[in-house]
């Protein structure tokens, strides 16, 4: 099977503190992948460094065999809902149209086609009737669906999503999952940061299990073993913890060079 994403020896630090450590895995084309791990295990950082939003200390990521800068227009990113200020003076349609900026350029007027695609995307997540609504008036689940619609409007080949299920109601969770399946059925690759172990097994056919380092990456049934989950969630590796603490306190470089 073709490889969609290749992550090679990726290490990322924030203020000297390692957030990801030697992450190395491949994702096959067309997979619906869950990124799973406890709080603070580097899930968001992984997605951000794949998008080139966070600079890695070492290692690299290749998407469709290329650097992210070459394939940006093929990849859509959904940030965490809490990462933006929902009191920002704008409405739902405007946010979804941002998904067209990448294709139509920031210095051209948006075309009728852009607006049609945005409306179709809103329709797919069941939010079309809220198109003119102020974003401050949306519920958490609705905000999340607006973000989904913006991602759909990008018409990408690959989707990287950070916690799309965080703080949403059951109805939204279902409608988001339906969108996932639709994306997968059209042969596109999707990586989703997810925190709920219960539903992860049901949603994803491929799992990347993280806890700062990579615990496992592979088909769900191979990764979801008692032993591997225990390794990710039950007690951290104490020696690695000590190394992290020394690096942070003394200011050693994570990589010589």
């Amino acid at each position, binding site marked *: 099977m073709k490889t969609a994403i290749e992550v090679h020896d990726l290490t990322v630090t924030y203020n000297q503190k390692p957030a990801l450590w030697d992450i190395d895995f491949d994702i096959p084309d067309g997979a619906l992948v869950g990124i799973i791990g406890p709080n603070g295990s580097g899930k968001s950082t992984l997605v951000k460094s794949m998008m080139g939003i966070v600079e890695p200390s070492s290692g690299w990521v290749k998407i469709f065999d290329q650097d992210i800068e070459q394939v940006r227009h093929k990849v859509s990113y959904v940030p965490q809902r809490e*990462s*933006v200020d929902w009191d920002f*003076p704008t409405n739902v349609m405007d946010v979804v149209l*941002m998904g067209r900026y990448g294709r139509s350029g920031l210095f051209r007027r948006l075309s009728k086609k852009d607006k049609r695609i945005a409306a179709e995307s809103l329709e797919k997540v069941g939010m079309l009737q809220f198109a003119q609504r102020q974003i401050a008036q949306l519920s958490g689940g609705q905000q999340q669906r607006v973000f989904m619609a913006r991602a759909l409007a990008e018409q990408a080949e690959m989707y990287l999503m950070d916690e799309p299920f965080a703080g949403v109601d059951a109805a939204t969770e279902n409608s988001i999952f339906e969108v996932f399946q639709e994306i997968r059925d059209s042969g596109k690759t999707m990586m989703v940061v997810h925190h709920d172990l219960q539903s992860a097994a049901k949603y994803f056919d491929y799992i990347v299990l993280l806890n700062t380092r990579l615990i496992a990456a592979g088909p769900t049934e191979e990764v979801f073993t008692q032993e591997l989950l225990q390794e990710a969630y039950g007690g951290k590796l104490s020696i690695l913890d000590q190394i992290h603490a020394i690096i942070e306190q003394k200011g050693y470089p994570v990589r010589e060079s």
Partner: protein
Amino acid sequence: MDWDIVIDFLLLRDPNVRYVVLGSVLIGASAALTGCFLFLRKRALVGDAIAHAVLPGICLAFLVFKTKNPAILLAGAILTGWLSLLFIDWITNKSRIKTDTAIGLTLSWFFGIGIMLLTAIQKTGNASQTGLDKFIFGKAASMVDQDVFVFGGLSIVVILVIFLFFKPLKLISFDRDFASSIGLPVGRYDFLLSTLTVLAVATGIQAVGVVLMAALLITPAAAARFWTDKLKRMLLLAATFGAFSGIVGAFISYTTPRMPTGPWIVIVISVIAIFSFLFGAKKGLVVRQVRQQKMQRKILRENILKLFYKLAEEDGQLYEQRGVDQLTNRRFFIPSQLKTGLQQLLKENLLEKADLDYRFTEKGVEEGKRITRLHRLWEMYLTQYLKIAPDHVHDDAEAIEHIITPEIEAELVHQLEMPELDPHDSTIPYGEKLPNKIKD
């Protein structure tokens, strides 16, 4: 006050007045527009730091070049304004000090140096030093055409750049990570916005003064936010507020030459801000109060109708006339409020007067039934879906019955499969149907 001067100003007869007014309008508008983006990115304090940090630059430029040429002083201002930004970034990146502290340190450090240099200049007794202190509190009327060309010209550049880069600036203000994900050079736009801030502050040094320029950056944006939920309208409003306070500042400065301009501009823009805070159409305090009161009155009216229906259920007489006493015996109402509530219901034709008492109209019956239905449906929902004991659901339903929209009602009916009885075995009234015990 000399009325001739006032009239001169208002009629813009004197070409110099025209220059001063034009300059003040441009300066006010460009600062307000830049400030909107600082405000939305929650970087208001950075504007304050820059405003203080341009002072040492002005003094240095004066010391080195021995001139009050506005272009040269402006260059000095921009230089140290920029340095202060780099300094803030440097502190936050290289130490454990957080941004707010870094801003505080930078602001006081640069301003301290500025005051020191200013004092030194004044001590030298340099003939042309007089008037350099107007850069602290501003003196709009002291602008001559040459100054206006420099400061106003720069303001026009700032306004044009914001107009041109509106979309990317909006995008990085709302969602930075998404902006980088579509390949926007976020760092370069940060740089652009910082540069615009430095320029917008620097244009105001003569008319408004360095210290109070921060107010002209942030206050118009904060005031405009109370009136609108649309970014473009917010920019337009903020620019108008900024320009208006600029004109007032120029007017004061022209008619009372000894008065510093900056403080007056701040007072004008602050009055606008306080007015907006109280009366703003979107988030103003008074508007919210009025909305709350409206809601309270709606709740009261609905409670009265619900009680009418309840009494009808009990004695089986739907159109029986009922007095205030009968109502207050069953439920606590504040007498004055009950009276206005009943009046309102008469006006809406939901109740009608019968002798001294009141009774349902047909329209009122439907409304009474609706509230009762919502109350009981919600009680059902709480017991069935949230597993709350039937004797604990009433208070919650009292509040929620006023909130449920027709769509939510339909969804409730659907999910509960149109229950006949509520958890306390009272009939839930739907449509035309009336419980058997009520006579029509």
